[in-house]
């Protein structure tokens, strides 16, 4: 052994010591130190083994390739097992020198090297091996401790999490009544923000003195007697200054010897519960006072509670109702089974419902109730019962019943009135038609002067009677609200042209010029009630014609727009006799005829009244300007909708069949069941030299229409077998030569609906019976 070696060994051992000291884990100490030993001490093998109760554990071997060989059967390990090594031992092993150092704690450090170490060197190495061992012990202990601490810390965290998750406050107090543990709920109850504000403090430091004193007395009782205090309601003031209530229990905390070392307290915040109870009390009071019946049932529908209102309503007491199903007690023979079923299903499905049903009082009196039932839910939203409010609606139901009955009576009356009007119209006009017709025919026979005079009077009186009846019927319809305007597209041009042609004919022979003035922008197609507009203009033009002996009658028509609404403005301007200011004020009153000349009293006095009513029905207005002997201007405006501007209309859509087309009348087919009328029309047509064929009912007219083409069909609407509407539909929709032949409706009925329907089924025009020969001729002229 040389000094040089000794010095080097010292240096190396110092270096190894540093290597050991620089490692911070057990594994690193083992691995790095073994490598350093091998490297610096020129060893071939290094191993760390431990003897754990007789079992040899190889902790590490370098080279690791040898690990499997370093088993319990390795000769060196056997040597350790056989001999108790307390410092170090050296062995010869497979041509190398093996050294075994005891590290303490049953650990051994073994290394092999080719060169032998002296005992002196081994002695020098020994303290470093002890440092190695100590470091391993320390690291082992440290890691064990860290592991235990981690486990403990984990357990503490777990316990703390559990405590803090509990909704109940939990705290511990020591015997000096200072808090040593407080969970979240407790901290919250106290109104503190952190645990630090509560820990190591007595209640006197946390609560107001009077409250704290009460708590302390309880604590002292538990400490002194060892008896718990259970579920005591305590009042505290939270950090918002609001009173809260706790249900507190206190138990003695004992050590292993049973000595009381403190108090375990639990506190459940029952503020919400108490407030809820209070609220329920108040609600119960309200419910009991209401006149309505209130029932609360459990989830299956069994009564749990009823209010006084219910008893007043049904005469059943709480005792009689509780635990029973309301339906079984309250419902009886008149109760609607469908309603009962619906209520049952709603309850089963937990749904709200509102129903009306007949229930029975205790004495058997039926009464009508309205039930509003809603499910009651707990905090989690689960249904735990139902609440039904029952209100007595017997009176209401009876009123409604009376109302319905009254309505039915009114409707019946209305129908009767309608029937009366229709019948009267038909029944009166039909004979009147015959009278007028026959009178007309009589005039054409050879009469003496007296007879002629009588005939003229007869004709005038019957015409007046017809006009009077027509006007009375029209007015009755308007006033009873039967006239409901139908706004549909129609061709304004055609309407105006027809009127113009008609009045041109009427004025024929009089020194009166009929003028139609239309603005350039007048639209072709507008939406409005064509028939009503026609009637209004007809009335005004007829009046003008009546009161204008000479001069002109002008129909001025234009449209304009105001505030986004289109308006039709028509003015009938005549140069007639005019109306005095006094008469103007009474102009639109019923049966008001004006003028002094008896001859001028040609009407019923209802025409203008009807006209005004019709305009107003369509939300329009009428005005008049007139000067005696100069003439009058009647103007009205009506709201309309412009569908197509001028000249762009597709007349095929709106034009009635053959309207506006001049026809040469050759052969007419007449459908008329009334013999008098058949006779009248026949004579009339004979006089006009027009061929005709008569059909007695709708079926006949359809059959005849199939045989040959006629110039015109006059169709009575009310006929046996098949009426005029059906016959027209058949003709228009079947293959026959008269599919497009003009059909003029003839009817004694004055109702607007009938006229409208006539057009709907495809008729071309309308002629009210009784009609004069001139009216018939006028229609022909329009064909």
């Amino acid at each position, binding site marked *: 052994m040389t000094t040089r070696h000794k010095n080097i060994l010292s*240096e190396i051992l110092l270096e190894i010591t540093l290597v050991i000291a620089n490692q911070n884990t057990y594994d690193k100490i083992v691995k790095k130190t073994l490598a350093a030993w091998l490297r610096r001490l020129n060893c071939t093998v290094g191993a760390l083994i431990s003897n754990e109760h007789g079992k040899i554990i190889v902790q590490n071997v370098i080279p690791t*390739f040898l690990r499997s060989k370093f088993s319990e059967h390795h000769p060196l390990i056997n040597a350790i097992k056989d001999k108790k090594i307390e410092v170090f031992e050296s062995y010869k092993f497979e041509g190398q020198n093996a050294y075994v150092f005891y590290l303490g704690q049953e650990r051994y450090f073994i290394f092999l*090297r080719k060169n032998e170490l002296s005992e002196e060197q081994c002695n020098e190495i020994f303290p470093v091996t002890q440092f190695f061992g100590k470091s391993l012990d320390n690291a082992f202990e440290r890691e064990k401790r860290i592991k235990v601490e981690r486990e403990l810390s984990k357990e503490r965290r777990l316990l703390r999490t559990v405590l803090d998750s509990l909704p109940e406050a939990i705290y511990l107090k020591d015997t000096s009544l200072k808090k040593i543990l407080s969970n979240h709920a407790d901290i919250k109850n106290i109104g503190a923000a952190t645990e630090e504000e509560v820990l190591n403090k007595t209640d006197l430091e946390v609560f107001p003195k009077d409250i704290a004193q009460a708590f302390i007395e309880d604590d002292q009782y538990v400490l002194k007697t060892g008896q718990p205090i259970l579920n005591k309601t305590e009042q505290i003031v939270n950090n918002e200054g609001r009173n809260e209530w706790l249900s507190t229990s206190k138990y003695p905390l004992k050590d292993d010897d049973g000595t009381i070392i403190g108090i375990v307290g639990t506190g459940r915040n029952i503020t919400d519960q108490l407030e809820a109870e209070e609220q329920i009390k108040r609600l119960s009071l309200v419910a009991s006072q209401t006149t309505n019946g209130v029932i609360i049932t459990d989830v299956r529908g069994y009564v749990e509670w009823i209010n006084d209102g219910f008893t007043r309503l049904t005469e059943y007491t709480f005792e009689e109702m509780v635990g029973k199903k309301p339906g079984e007690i309250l419902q009886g023979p008149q109760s609607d089974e469908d309603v009962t079923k619906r209520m049952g299903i709603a309850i089963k499905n937990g749904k709200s419902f509102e129903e009306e049903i007949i229930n029975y009082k205790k004495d058997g009196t039926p009464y009508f109730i309205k039930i509003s039932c809603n499910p009651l839910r707990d905090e989690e939203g689960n249904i735990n019962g139902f609440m039904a409010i029952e209100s007595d609606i017997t009176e209401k139901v009876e009123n409604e019943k009376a109302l319905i009955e009254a309505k039915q009576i009114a409707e019946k009356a209305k129908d009767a009135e309608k029937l009366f009007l229709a019948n009267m119209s038909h029944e009166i006009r039909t004979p009147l038609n015959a009278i007028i017709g026959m009178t007309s025919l009589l005039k054409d026979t050879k009469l003496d002067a007296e007879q002629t005079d009588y005939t003229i009077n007869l004709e005038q009186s019957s015409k007046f009677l017809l006009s009077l009846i027509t006007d009375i019927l029209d007015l009755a319809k308007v006033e009873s609200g039967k006239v409901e305007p139908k706004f549909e597209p129609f061709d304004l041009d055609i309407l105006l042209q027809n009127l113009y042609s008609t009045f041109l004919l009427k004025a024929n022979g009089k020194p009166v010029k009929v003028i139609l003035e239309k603005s350039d922008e007048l639209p072709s197609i507008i939406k409005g009630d064509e028939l009503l507009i026609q009637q209004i203009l007809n009335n005004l033009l007829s009046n003008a014609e009546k009161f204008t002996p000479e001069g002109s009658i002008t129909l001025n028509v234009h449209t304009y727009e105001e505030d986004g609404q289109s308006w039709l403005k028509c003015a009938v301007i005549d140069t007639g006799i005019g109306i005095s200011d006094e008469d103007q004020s009474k102009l639109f009153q019923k049966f008001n005829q004006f003028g002094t000349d008896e001859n001028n009293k040609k009407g019923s006095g209802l025409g203008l009244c009807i006209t005004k009513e019709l305009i107003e029905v369509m939300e329009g207005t009428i005005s008049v300007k007139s000067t005696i002997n100069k003439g009058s201007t009647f103007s009205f405006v009506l709201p309309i909708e412009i569908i197509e501007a001028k000249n762009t209309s597709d007349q095929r859509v709106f034009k009635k069949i053959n309207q506006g087309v001049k026809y040469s009348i050759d052969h007419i087919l007449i459908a008329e069941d009334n013999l008098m009328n058949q006779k009248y029309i026949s004579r009339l047509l004979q006089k006009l030299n027009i061929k005709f064929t008569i059909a007695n009912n709708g079926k006949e007219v359809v059959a005849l229409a199939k045989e040959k083409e006629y110039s015109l069909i006059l169709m009575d609407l009310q006929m046996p077998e098949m009426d005029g509407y059906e016959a027209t539909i058949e003709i228009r929709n079947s293959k026959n030569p008269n599919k497009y032949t003009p059909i003029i409706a003839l009817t004694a009925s004055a109702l607007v609906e009938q006229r409208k329907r006539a057009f709907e089924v495809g008729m071309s025009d309308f002629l009210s019976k009784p009609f004069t020969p001139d009216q018939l001729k006028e229609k022909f002229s329009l064909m």
Partner: protein
Amino acid sequence: MNKTYLKNDSFFDALQNNIEAAKDNATNSLLVLSSANQAVDTEKMNALLKSSSIPVIGGIFPEVIFEGKSYDQGSIIIDMEQEMKTLVIDDFSSNEAVEALLEKHLGELDPNGKTVFVFADALLDKKAMVFEELYNLFGTLPRYIGGGAGTLEFNSFPCLYTNRGMAEGSITIGICDLDTSVGVAHGWEPITEPLKVTKAEGNKIITLNWKPAMQVYQEIVEKHSGQPFDYDNFFDTTKSYPFGVSKLDSEKIVRDPYMTENDMIFTLDTIEEGSHVSVLYGNTESLLDGASKARSRAESSKEIKNLFLIDCISRVLYMGEEFSAELNKLDAQNIGFGALTLGEIANNGDSFLEVYNKTAVVCAIHDN
């Protein structure tokens, strides 16, 4: 074992032939040593190496040794009939990562009686990590021999031959059943008492005996040489004064300083903090003596059929023309092959696997 020295231009074709004809020639692995001036078309070489059906291991070094002469041109190809298990390590993220890799690829091998070739990119600073883990796995059971690859320009480039292609920043390891004896010696002697490395990081000595390392070193060199320290010619000034790390019953492990900065000294390989170093000194005579020792330590009773020589290029730089004498000491019969390296990797079978500087390593090969 069949070795051939090839000039620069015939190397690639020869290697290609050897790889392609390997099976016919009963060649099961190839050792390839190239000199710094061997031009290598990396792309072509990668394709060739990847196509090889037999393991290829080796590197590019400052010079190669072939039958008694050193060459700064050309390459040596050694056909070996021994099968070889090779592994390239390029993940140095942690000791654990390297350990896992070695365990995975080499853990099942019985290293007894085997020879491990280890070639490392000389510029890789994590060499020690790999050697530590390699030694932890195999210990002294096999013999290790190899060296640091690269050139004296200290440029980074793909300097290792592997079956993945040319590699840089890596270590390639090959284990084969080859009977060898390894001798390691350098001939440098301490001129100081051991100095404690009080602060070091990798291959950077920051303080010695708690004083700035360069100040301590400069004082020692100036005192021994009687000359003021010439910072401008750092390599020349320091080439006679390397550091030696102490090791029990063994020559010191030489660490070659190659530059200084901010009073720190950079060595070619790592010096661990806490270790003790001496400043060494040598001359041609002592170095030749070292070479003789290396050769004699590789001797055994077995017949030497070939010699694999790993010698430090700095010994060539130090000895100059007299280096031929060193070669003669190492291989008097001119039978050997080898490389002049940047760091010598060896273990003579009874100590820790180390990377040496300024050291001669002789691997006597007893198998054909």
